[in-house]
């Protein structure tokens, strides 16, 4: 499969995974990779506190769109834009668009949304998803990447449409929930990309989440992204002294020990990772896209481009696999 086909599978990609697995990193990577393939991309963030702008070397996001990376240049890349959606903001907009602007400010400023949200759980989620649906319908970008809320909340979040149809049987919220459900269930409009890391608990949770999402929400699952995989390196099983001899140089005693210890550590972790990646493949019949572990503790534009290129190379390898 080539990147164009991958990104053409659906306009909306929802990125989901538990906290700490690099969900936002993957959202940014997907967006950047799409932009490098010439597709204009909008990243939508809903938690209000995101490392996303830093990855693009930019400052904070707001409810209105910000350009994270400008397209053009010799490579012909497209723009990556981003915005943070809030339930309050989406509600205000919704009420305004539906001729209810007179009450809208009061409803939000009085904190009534909290009470309404308690009366009908999922209402905030549906306001956010309703807005995403509107963006998808309007075709504001070639690709829309939704960085979904973390942890088990992703399931509740995506299930909100179905739950609300039960508790709110009439009116505009009901209509909104119907539209959102239609979007989520239409695999040509929307797919979920799960993110995990090659470790025991995150793999277990990814498997559970995948089945819940398919069974309870009915969304289509795209490839699963395994983030933080140690890249292969030559010489990991070589003896440093022998390797030095082969290279025609010498190493100090202490340095040889350090080289051997670091190589042993990497072998251990690599084999643990391989076990978990294998277990994930056994338990979840989804194509895997693996992103390399970056030996930096933060991600900026340079690291992001490395990830985006690694991602595109992986997508190329997915040839022939069904989405």
């Amino acid at each position: 499969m080539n990147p164009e086909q991958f990104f053409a599978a659906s306009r909306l990609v929802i990125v989901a995974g538990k906290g700490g697995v690099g969900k936002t990193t993957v959202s940014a990577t997907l967006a950047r990779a799409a932009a490098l393939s010439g597709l204009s991309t909008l990243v939508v963030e809903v938690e209000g506190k995101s490392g996303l702008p830093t990855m693009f070397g930019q400052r904070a996001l707001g409810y209105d769109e910000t350009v994270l990376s400008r397209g053009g240049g010799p490579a012909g890349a497209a723009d990556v834009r981003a915005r943070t959606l809030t339930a309050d903001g989406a509600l205000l907009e919704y009420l305004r668009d539906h001729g209810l602007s007179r009450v809208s400010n009061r409803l939000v400023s009085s904190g009534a949304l909290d009470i309404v949200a308690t009366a009908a759980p999922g209402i905030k989620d549906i306001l956010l998803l309703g807005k995403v649906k509107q963006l998808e319908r309007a075709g504001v970008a070639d690709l829309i990447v939704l960085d979904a809320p973390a942890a088990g909340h992703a399931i509740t979040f995506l299930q909100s449409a179905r739950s609300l149809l039960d508790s709110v049987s009439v009116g505009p919220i009901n209509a909104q929930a119907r539209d959102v459900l239609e979007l989520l269930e239409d695999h040509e409009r929307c797919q979920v990309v799960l993110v995990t890391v090659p470790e025991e608990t995150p793999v277990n949770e990814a498997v559970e989440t995948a089945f819940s999402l398919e069974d309870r929400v009915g969304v289509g699952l795209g490839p699963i992204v395994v983030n933080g995989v140690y890249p292969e390196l030559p010489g990991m099983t070589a003896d440093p002294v022998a390797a030095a001899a082969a290279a025609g140089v010498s190493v100090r005693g202490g340095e040889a020990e350090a080289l051997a210890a670091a190589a042993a550590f990497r072998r251990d972790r690599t084999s643990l990772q391989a076990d978990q990646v294998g277990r994930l493949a056994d338990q979840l019949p989804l194509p895997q896209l693996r992103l390399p572990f970056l030996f930096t503790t933060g991600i900026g534009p340079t690291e992001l481009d490395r990830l985006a290129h690694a991602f595109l190379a992986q997508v190329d390898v997915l040839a022939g696999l069904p989405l």
Partner: protein
Amino acid sequence: MTDGNDGSAGVADFDKLVRDRRIVVCCGSGGVGKTTTAAVVGLEGARSGRRTVVVTIDPAKRLADALGLAGLTGTPSRIEGDWPGELWATMLDTKSTFDDLVAKYAATPEQAERILANRFYRNISGALSGTQEYMAMEKLYELHEESDFELVVVDTPPTRNALDFLDAPRRLSRFLEHRLFRMLVAPSRGVLKAVNVAAQTFLRTVSRVVGGDVVQDAIAFFQAFEGMEEGFRMRAVRVNELLAAPETAFVLVASPRQDTVEEAHFFADRLREAGIVVQGLIVNRVHPSFTDALPEALAARADTLDGTDLGGLYRNLADFEQVASREHEHLAGLADAVSPAPLAWVPFLRSDVHDLVGMAEVGTHVFTRSPG
């Protein structure tokens, strides 16, 4: 981190914390190993001879099994083991904790029943943000005040808004005292008719958006709740007092990744603003360092030797030294921010912690006790 640079000078202080405090709250962002850390602290409490209970929020399945929490239960269950104290564990059951609280403050059993049966109330535990945090603190208070545990260790929920749990009790009482609430119950209170009419108009609009049933449920809930706000508010005040009391210690749990270190800074600041001093910093999953050589020098060597086995070995060492030195920089700043709190760096372990042996192993990096 090489030896002598791992905060080990402070390790004895964690022993002291577990021996002397009555409450240890483990806080930090999601995915940093908070639940495991809470279990490790609890185990140490039992090993130092105290009757200890660990309240966890959402343990991974195998850890839950190890803690005897296979079936969801709001009642502590005892974990048998070879230690002088006692180790109990319980999983936070938000709904039943809230139900108990309603029963406690209802004027009559009928009032409690009316509330518990209300659909709006049943949604509160799942939908009102901060409820889980509030109930975690409520459970802590209840276990501290109303049972004879000597040490209560609590895990905090991985919340969207980092320190919701500090604010949660206040937040719920604010919700209950909301002026909309006043409006909703106004008809039964005989407030001026003009106000009432405005309220009704407003409610009609809300009904148009979300449906009438929803609004009726909410009104019924607030009417049923009338008179209980004061009890809830007083309780919230006492819970907050306990959190700030000298017998309570907040331990910040973090991982060395840049984003989680930033969040940990944010936590430390917010706690300080709330008048709470961080009493310990535990950092999980710290990368090892293998040499004193500089990562840049190692990387240069790897470049020269590119394509050979030795080049690979140098690249690998350079990679890990780079991670270790970056982590060290980030953590040094965090250690300063919580100074003079004791620090413990827990290295990457061979596998996930999911039994008492694994918990004891983590313990060796936090406490001075031997693993045996």
